[in-house]
């Protein structure tokens, strides 16, 4: 058996238990590798709990995926009925039978056709089963439901002895077997088969709480192996059974330093300028009508714009409703849906139990491989579970998403407006970033304020911002701090207007002073120039007097000389010379 997994406890070199992969999604994780190879496993549960389906899947997966042919011995359904019943899961039993991968043998036991007279044994069954096993080289066997023998035959002593022999014989054949049995009152099985099959016992349960049904699986015992002991929810859908293992409780996650934008620039700025960490979890909580869905849609829109995939789980509105509503704030989600980047999954929380929601979310995420997931709103999940259950579910979801490095945004409706008292389903301590949107009532208006309650590992703003939704989209404004306190909405706008007016008036006043000064300067300058002119004219007068004096002196000197010359007789000659 090439596909059997070795048990990890093989360190000492002692013989260890081989395990065969069941191929059922999730079951191998819980059992640590599958069912015990070469031993019978008892699968018990009430009617309709999925025993037959699980055992068929065990056989089919074994044949298809692990190359281990299998025999399905049906005590309840005819081969054709069985083939029809599992065809909905995409299992083609007829073809597998033709290919000699599986063999279905219907054991018909009809009490009215049977008469018991004296001693007998079940060698016929042994031979039949042995022949079926040998004809296709089967490694896996299912007996569904062998307890039907008890209703067809009356000699219990023989039956019990023969069943004990059958299980021993199966072990000696070395086939990995599943024996299904009906759940009994106060016992695991109606006929106490657990006494005979004691290597591995799996219990299926189908419980209805608050009118919502959840299928669960529990490994009651697994001899020689460690196994998960919890009750694990499982889902039956068109792909068969998926068991949801509770994710590891170890806190050893890879962390990313990469940042992703929230799609709102001003919000990114509040978050250290770059947005959230990739793979982190974000909670947006707030009272009704504060724009939580809008924030979530922005985030989804941004992821799609980056060409990343996003799944939007809507628990309140239908996809078309969200698309229409978001169009009004200038976000076109339809385009992303058409391009295959955005996937909406809308379901009422009451559609199925919490665990089922979780399983279906897991499955969708595994399939679509998004990098961003949005759950809007988680508050509605409360309708199908208690607060602690929702919290447990979200822990597991966050764990899983962190493993896959998927960024998740939850929205939550808060009914209690006192922030410190409400805990948002107790997830606020789990998430990495918590945005809180709240109403601010002032002057007969209701405005929105947003702040970051926490954001692990980054420098984030401690301010309250006014959160505005317009036709153009979302924006965050600095909250206006006026002289009378915090102002929002139209109060903020009117205050801003008032201040603008004041500024204009002030400017006006300043301008007038400026003009006054320049006029004064002009007057002064004029005065200065007139004084200068006065000074110049006085100076000129003085100069004139000087010149006259000099001229007078010169003339009188000349006259004096002439008189002198006349007196000395030279005056005539002189006069002649002058005449010449």
């Amino acid at each position, binding site marked *: 058996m090439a596909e059997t997994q070795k048990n990890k406890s093989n360190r000492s070199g002692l013989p260890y238990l081989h395990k065969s992969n069941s191929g059922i999604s999730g079951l191998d994780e819980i059992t640590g590798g599958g069912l015990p190879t070469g031993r019978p496993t008892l699968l018990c549960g009430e009617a309709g709990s999925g025993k037959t389906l699980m055992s068929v899947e065990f056989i089919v997966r074994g044949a298809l995926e692990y190359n281990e042919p299998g025999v399905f011995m049906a005590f309840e359904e005819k081969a054709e009925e069985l083939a029809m019943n599992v065809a909905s899961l995409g299992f083609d039993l007829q073809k597998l039978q033709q290919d000699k991968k599986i063999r279905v043998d219907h054991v018909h036991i009809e009490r009215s056709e049977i008469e018991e007279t*004296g001693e*007998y044994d079940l060698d016929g*069954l042994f*031979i039949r089963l042995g*022949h079926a096993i040998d004809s296709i080289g089967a490694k896996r066997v299912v007996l569904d439901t062998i307890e039907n023998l008890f209703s067809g*035959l009356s000699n219990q002593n023989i039956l019990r002895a023969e069943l004990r022999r059958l299980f021993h014989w199966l072990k000696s054949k070395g086939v990995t077997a599943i024996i299904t049995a009906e759940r009994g009152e106060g016992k695991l099985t109606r006929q106490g088969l657990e006494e005979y099959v004691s290597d591995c016992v799996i219990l299926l349960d189908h419980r209805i709480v608050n009118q919502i049904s959840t299928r669960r699986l529990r490994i009651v015992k697994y001899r020689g192996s460690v196994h998960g002991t919890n009750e694990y929810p499982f889902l039956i859908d068109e792909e068969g059974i998926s068991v949801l293992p509770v994710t590891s409780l170890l806190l050893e996650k890879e962390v990313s330093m990469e940042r992703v934008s929230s799609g709102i620039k001003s919000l990114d700025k509040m978050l250290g300028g770059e947005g959230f960490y990739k793979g982190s979890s974000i909670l947006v909580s707030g009272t009704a009508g504060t724009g939580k869905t809008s924030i979530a849609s922005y985030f989804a829109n941004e992821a799609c714009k980056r060409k990343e995939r996003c799944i939007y789980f809507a628990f309140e509105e239908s996809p078309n409703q969200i698309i229409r509503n978001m169009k009004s704030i200038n976000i076109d989600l339809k385009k992303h849906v058409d391009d295959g980047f955005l996937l909406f999954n809308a379901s009422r929380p009451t559609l199925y139990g919490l665990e089922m929601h979780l399983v279906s979310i897991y499955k969708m995420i595994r399939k679509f491989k998004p990098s961003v997931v949005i759950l809007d709103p988680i508050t509605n999940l409360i309708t199908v579970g208690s607060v602690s259950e929702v919290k447990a579910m979200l822990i597991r979801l966050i764990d899983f998403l962190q493993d896959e490095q998927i960024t998740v945004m939850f929205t939550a409706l808060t009914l209690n407006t006192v922030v410190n008292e409400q805990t948002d389903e107790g997830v606020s301590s789990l998430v990495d970033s918590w945005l809180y949107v709240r109403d601010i009532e002032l002057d007969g208006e209701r405005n929105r304020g947003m702040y970051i309650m926490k954001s692990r590992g980054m420098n984030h703003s401690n301010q309250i911002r006014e959160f505005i939704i317009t036709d153009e989209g979302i924006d965050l404004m600095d909250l206006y701090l006026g002289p009378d306190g915090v102002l929002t909405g139209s109060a903020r706008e009117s205050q801003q207007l008032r201040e603008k007016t004041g500024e204009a008036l002030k400017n006006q006043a300043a301008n007038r002073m400026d003009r006054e000064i320049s006029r004064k300067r002009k007057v002064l300058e004029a005065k200065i120039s007139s004084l200068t002119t006065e000074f110049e004219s006085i100076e000129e007068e003085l100069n004139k007097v000087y010149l006259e004096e000099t001229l007078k002196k010169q003339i009188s000197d000349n006259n004096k000389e002439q008189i002198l010359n006349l007196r000395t007789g030279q005056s005539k000659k002189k006069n002649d010379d002058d005449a010449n």
Partner: protein
Amino acid sequence: MMMMPINPEVNTMEDMWELKLYVAGNTPKSATALENLKKYCEEHLFGKYRIEIIDLLVNPQLAEGDQIFAIPTLVKKVPEPIRRIIGDLSDKEKVLVGLNIIPVK
């Protein structure tokens, strides 16, 4: 496989009782069953019965067709209805009632 002697006087198929006895090897239970069967047939169906013995150890593929799970099993196909009688056939009355040879009392 062995055939029991047929009474030449009764030859029409309608009157024939076709009985198959499934065994697995030669076990005491099978031997007892066959012994008992022969005795009842000689007493009540003299000359108009045919017994076929099928050893599933030799022909295991025949087990599925006749829905055999217990050994020994006696199957009566003809005349209708089909009846199966399991065990060593030690309870004479049950066998005869089961084979519709005598009515239920």
